[in-house]
Structure formats: C-alpha cells, structure tokens
C-alpha cells in the first residue's frame, strides 16, 4: 500500500500547490468568486427555507409533505450521485493519461481501482455536499434543531456517498468490460431511449386523478401517493432519511441502527467493487483503449451528413462551421447523453403534469405552476448553455489555429455559434413550454406570453454563454466540465440566473397582484405589457453587450 500512499501524498501536494496558486489571482477575481459562492449557498438555503416555512404553515399536512420531501430529496441525490460517479469513474479511471501511467507501474489492478474509487468519491460528492448542507440547514432551522445535527448529517453522508460511488464505479466497471466496444454510443442511446419511453408511458398512462373539493383533499388524493416510490425500504435514501428523522425525534439507538446499516453496505459495495476490479479492471481498460471505431462515415450513407445537405442555403463558410459543430456534437454521445438527461428529466416531469391533474387546481396555483415551469425550462436551458455553449470557444483551443488562420472575421465565428446554439435551444425548450402550458390549460394570454419569454430568453442566455465564453477562454483544458468550473463559467452561470430571476419576477409580479386581487384587470393588462417590453429591452441589451464584448475579446485573442 506504500505506492497508494505515495499517490495520495502527491494528490495532497497538488491541492496545496493549487491553493497556493490562488494567491497569484487578482484580489477582485477572488472576491467575486467568493461573492458568487456565498450568493449561491445563500440562495440554496433561502429558497428551501421559505418553502419549508410555507409547508409548516399548512399544519399537519405540511409536516407530512416535509417528511416525504426528505425521502424524495435523498432519492434524487442518490440517483444523481450514482450517475455522476459513472461519468467520473469513466473519465478518471479509463480515459485519463494518469491511468496509463499507473498501469505501467508495479501496482495491483485493485490498488489502481482503489485510487480511482477514492478520487471518484471526492470529485462526485463535494459539490453535492455544498448544496446538501444549506438545504438541510434550512430544514434544521425550521425544525429548530441544534448544531449537533450538522455533525450528525456529515457522519451519515459519508457512507451514503460511498455506497453511491461504489455502485457507480461498479456499473462502469461492468459496462466497460462486457458491453460492446462502442460503450458511450450504447449508453447514450439507452439513456435517450429510456427517457423517451418514460415520457410516452407517462403521457399514455391512465389518469388516476380524482375530483377534489379543496387543496387539502387534492394533495391527499393526488399528490402524496406519488411519493411512495421514494420510500423503498431497501434503498440507501430510505436508510439515511430514516436515520435523520429518528435522530430528530431523539431516538438515538434507532438512528445508530440506520447509520450502521449504511456503513455496512458502504463497506460491502466497496469490497465488491475491489473484488471485481481484480478480474475486470485491466481487461476493461484495455478494451476502452482500443474502443475507437474504425467505422466508415460514408457521406451518402451517414444520416447526419444527409441532414447537413439541407443547410446548403447558408453561405459556404457559415455552412462549414455549422456542419462541423453538428457532426462533432452528434458523434460524441458523452455530450448529448448529458443533454438528454437534463431535458429528459424535464420532459418526464412535464409529461407527468397530466397525470397529476394540475389543470384542476385553482387559477392561483395554475399560474404559479406555469411560472415555475417557465423558470425550470429556462434554468435547465441556462445550466445546459453554460455546460455546452460556454466552453465551445475554449474547446476550439488547440484547434483554434484552423479558424484563426482562415480568412474569416472573428465575428462570424462567434455569430455562427450564437445562431446555431440559439436555434437548437429553441427547438427543445419551445415544445416543452407549449406542452406544459397546454396540459395545464392556461389562458391564451399566458400561453403567448410564456412562448415570447422562452424565445427571447433562449437568444439572451445563449448570447451570454457565447460572449462570455469568448471573454474568458481556457485553452489549457480539454475537459468541458473543468472549463465551466472556472471563474468565467461561474460568472456566466450567475449572470444567467440573475437574468432569469429578473425576467420571471417582472412577469410573475403582475399575475400575482391580479390573482390576489390587489390590482384591477385594466392595470394588470397594462403591467403585463410593460413587463413584456422590459423583458425585450433587457434581452436586446444582454444580447448586444455579450456579443460585442465576445467579438472584441476574440479579435484581441492571442494563441
């Protein structure tokens, strides 16, 4: 184990050097990063805090919902942690150059797997922990719990995260060893197929919505039963939720039981992973190294080449850039499988609106749900834009000599990315919002308004990501996730969130005032027109400023 210890010592030194390197950055930059971080953490605390307070105010029904939400929260967290570990284990355990180096050293395969497993635990769980703490702090504040709760929470989270990492790494280990060589193509198509099937199933499934006399009976008959699936007694999310609730109730021995159950399972799954790694890791690594497809992409047979022929109306240089971007995206399942997961989850939720019978709720709730849907569509779009559009200029990086040498205006390169991504984003978010609004049976005014907002926001969010992507390029990294996690990516995400918050508030406020009978219908209509003008105005400024700043930065860019 001396070699493994050396690897972790090197890791610690690298972290120390990285922390020491922070001093080299400007104070303003460090200040902004901290400000953004604190702002996000505060938002992650405040929003659930208000929600928990609201639920508490509903009395016993609210308490039931709060408890059920805890199960649901940990279930979502568990699924996301497994998914995140699958991707991290694949990229660090199979694709990283460091792994090749480790395989050349006199190390047991299980030792290399162990190093990668520990890496995966840390890399996957730290961001989740950053958001888990404020959300559960909000819960603790509402329940008026003592500080020991936080220590207890961390103690519970460790085996929970280890189980997720062990399962995620084990899935990757088995998939890479036994699935066809084109692992990611298979995975991408499987994930997309599952989401599509899920949406169709939810859409076609028989409605089990009962007519309800009031909100309480609506929630009891239509809403609460849907939480049942998150309370499966053999799932780690159930164990951690039970453990926390028993702790809150002062049942410490029972709480210890659930922690020991988590711990024993964490050790069991870790052991299973290491045992499998002894036999499968090296074989899988060899397969992944030779997984490049020697398939021929004949222009007359390749579907995407045929599709791109439809773009011949574009000027030649623009056509070349668009076709290149489409082909690169389409042929990289890592990119579009993540894309599918984001929008697939949203599509499943929207498809489920019909089954939950939301169109039956009072207009007040209907409008709130409509604005929440609008926000969630835009938030998903924002996170996807930051994840996929922001790094595009950086990813040209080492290949930028190709575009840099071409007789093209830099503005054309940036605008191609802007139009291409905006249209792609529109093709996904517009049908989603139309679907959700028609299922909610919203008024035609609200339908048109949300469509306008989605269109305008699509262009604005993409312009922010394109412009700031050119303003803060990172040509040292090839990994988009690393590029996004830097200063530029964080700033872009915050600006996107701010933009969405301002616009949705401007739109939601008149509706809220009208429905709560604080303003007349005439004033309401006037305010809606003003809000729409404001959104358009703000969006034009956002697009103009982002793209002109991006163009200037690209012109001054030195490779």
């Amino acid at each position: 184990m001396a070699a493994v210890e050396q690897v972790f010592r090197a890791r610690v030194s690298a972290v120390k050097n990285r922390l020491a390197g922070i001093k080299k950055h400007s104070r303003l930059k460090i200040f902004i990063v901290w400000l953004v971080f604190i702002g996000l953490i505060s938002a992650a605390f405040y929003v659930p805090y208000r929600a928990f307070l609201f639920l508490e105010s509903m009395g016993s029904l609210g308490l039931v919902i709060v408890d059920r939400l805890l199960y649901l929260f940990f279930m979502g967290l568990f699924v996301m942690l497994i998914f995140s570990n699958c991707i991290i284990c694949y990229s660090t355990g199979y694709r990283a150059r460091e792994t090749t180096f480790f395989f050349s050293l006199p190390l047991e395969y299980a030792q290399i797997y162990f190093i990668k497993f520990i890496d995966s635990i840390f890399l996957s769980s730290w961001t989740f922990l950053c958001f888990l703490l404020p959300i559960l702090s909000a819960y603790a504040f509402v329940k008026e719990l003592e500080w020991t709760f936080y220590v207890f929470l961390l103690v519970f989270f460790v085996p929970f995260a280890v189980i997720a990492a062990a399962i995620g790494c084990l899935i990757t280990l088995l998939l890479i060893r036994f699935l066809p060589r084109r692992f990611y193509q298979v995975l991408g198509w499987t994930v997309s197929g599952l989401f599509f099937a899920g949406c169709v199933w939810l859409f076609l499934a028989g409605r089990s919505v009962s007519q309800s006399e009031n909100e309480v009976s609506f929630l009891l008959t239509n809403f609460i039963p849907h939480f049942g699936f998150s309370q499966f007694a053999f799932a780690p999310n159930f164990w951690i939720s039970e453990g926390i609730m028993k702790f809150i109730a002062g049942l410490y021995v029972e709480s210890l039981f659930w922690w020991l159950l988590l711990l024993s399972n964490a050790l069991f799954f870790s052991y299973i992973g290491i045992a499998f790694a002894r036999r499968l890791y090296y074989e899988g690594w060899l397969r992944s190294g030779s997984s490049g497809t020697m398939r021929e992409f004949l222009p007359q047979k390749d579907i995407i080449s045929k599709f791109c022929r439809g773009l011949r109306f574009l000027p030649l240089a623009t056509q070349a850039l668009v076709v290149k971007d489409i082909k690169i995206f389409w042929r990289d399942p890592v990119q579009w499988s993540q894309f599918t997961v984001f929008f697939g989850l949203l599509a499943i939720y929207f498809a489920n609106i019909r089954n939950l019978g939301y169109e039956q709720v009072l207009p007040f709730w209907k409008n709130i749900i409509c604005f929440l849907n609008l926000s969630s569509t835009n938030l998903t779009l924002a996170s996807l834009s930051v994840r996929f559009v922001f790094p595009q200029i950086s990813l040209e990086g080492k290949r930028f000599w190709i575009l840099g040498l071409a007789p093209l205006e830099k503005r054309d390169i940036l605008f191609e990315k802007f139009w291409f991504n905006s249209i792609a984003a529109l093709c996904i978010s517009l049908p989603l919002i139309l679907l959700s609004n028609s299922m909610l049976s919203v008024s035609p005014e609200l339908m048109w308004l949300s469509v306008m907002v989605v269109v305008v926001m699509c262009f604005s969010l993409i312009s922010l990501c394109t412009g700031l992507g050119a303003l803060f390029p990172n040509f040292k990294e090839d990994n988009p996730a690393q590029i996004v996690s830097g200063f530029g990516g964080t700033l872009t995400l915050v600006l996107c969130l701010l933009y969405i918050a301002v616009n949705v508030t401007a739109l939601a406020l008149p509706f809220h005032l009208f429905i709560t009978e604080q303003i007349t219908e005439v004033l309401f209509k006037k305010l809606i027109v003003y809000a729409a003008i404001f959104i358009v105005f703000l969006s034009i400024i956002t697009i103009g400023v982002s793209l002109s700043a991006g163009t200037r930065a690209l012109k001054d860019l030195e490779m």
Partner: protein
Amino acid sequence: MILIENLTKRFGELVAVDALNLEIGTGEFFAFLGPNAAGKTTTIKTLVGLLKPTQGRAQLCGYDIQRDYLKAKTLLSYIPDAPFLYDKLTGAEFLDFVLNLYPSSNREKQMKMKDELLFQFGLDNHKYHLIENYSHGMRQKLVFAAALLHEPKVMIIDEPMVGLDPHSSRIVKDILKQKSRQGVTIFLSTHTLNVAEEIADRIGIIDKGRLIAVGTLEELKVSSGVHGKLEDVFLRLTEEES
C-alpha cells in the same frame, strides 16, 4: 513575399522576439533554425496572425497580417508542429471544412485536388474514418493536404517532419520543393538540420529572440568560420551567442 520589419514580441518582461528584420522573396525556400525557446514558434505565430506583435509588422504578399488579415490569410498556409484537429470529423470532412472556409473561384478543381492529395499522402483508404483513429503521422499528412488545398502563395511550416515516416518525409520534401519551384514562398522552422541543409535556399538562425545569422549555407559557413556540416555551423553560431 514575406517582409518582417522590426518585429518584436514581449510577454511581460520576457522578450521572445527582438527587433527581427527579414525579407524572403517569391519562391524562396527559407529555413528558420534555433535552439529550444529561441523564439521560432513565437515568430511564426506572429507572422501568421495568431499573436500580435508588440512592435513592428509583418507583411505577406504585400498585405499586413494585422491590418489586411483577410487578404493575407487567403494567400497563406500554416502547418503547426502539433496537429490538433477535430477528432470527430473524418479526414475527408476535415478537408471539406477547410476548403469551404476559403473563397474559391474553381471549387471543382479543388475537389479533384482533394482526392489527389489524399491519394498522394496515402490517406485515401482512411478518408472516411474519424480523425480520432489517425496516428500522429496521419494527422500531420492530413494537415499538409489541408494546407495545400487552397493553393497558397506563402507556406509557413513549424517542424514538418515530426511523426512522419521516411516515405512520408520524402513526399513532403518533394512537394515543398515542387511548390517552391512553382513560386510558393516557404518559411520552414525545424530542428532537423539535414532537411534545411538539403532543400533550403537560405537559412536564418535565431537565438534568444535575435536573428544571429542569415544567408545561404555557404555564406553561413564563411561567417562562422566552420567548413563542416550545417550542424557544426549551427552549434558554433549558437555557442558564440551563449
């Protein structure tokens, strides 16, 4: 064809290229030599417009690379030392992509030329495979093919022989000689001194950002007082500097 006047490039305190003056004529084959970190790649990147000069200017075919960059780049080809390409495109798609980025009066001729170049470089059997499956040498050959497609008047090449097998090296040298005879100006930076010795009309040696010697091989031998191979001349001149 290439005119460099007082070209200086600084990175903070470091002077990477120091007041470089050079004129290279039409159809001339110019080899640019220098030890590691001498300023070769910086000069080249400044020359092709990937870096901005701190001072001075560079002209290609009479066009300033900073002011008239569109015209200059239409006539220019650059082959970098590390061929980073779009891995998810096929070789043929990459060539189509590059072809479409440049204005052309005879697209049909260029399409025919594309097939000829793929054949010449031995890539025609791999043209529909993704570039991610290409070896370093295959990538380098693809970059050469892409550089020749739009029939440039000036070719700027950084370490052309890295990763090429002897057969491909010969093809590249022959093509470059042929292009030079056809009137294409070639600016080649290399550490492979026998290539420079074999095919260059003139040789320039840069060290610590300054051009320390320029001339034909014979002129360099006279100025250095060494009557051996280019390697001996190069070592003497760079030793003197250090």
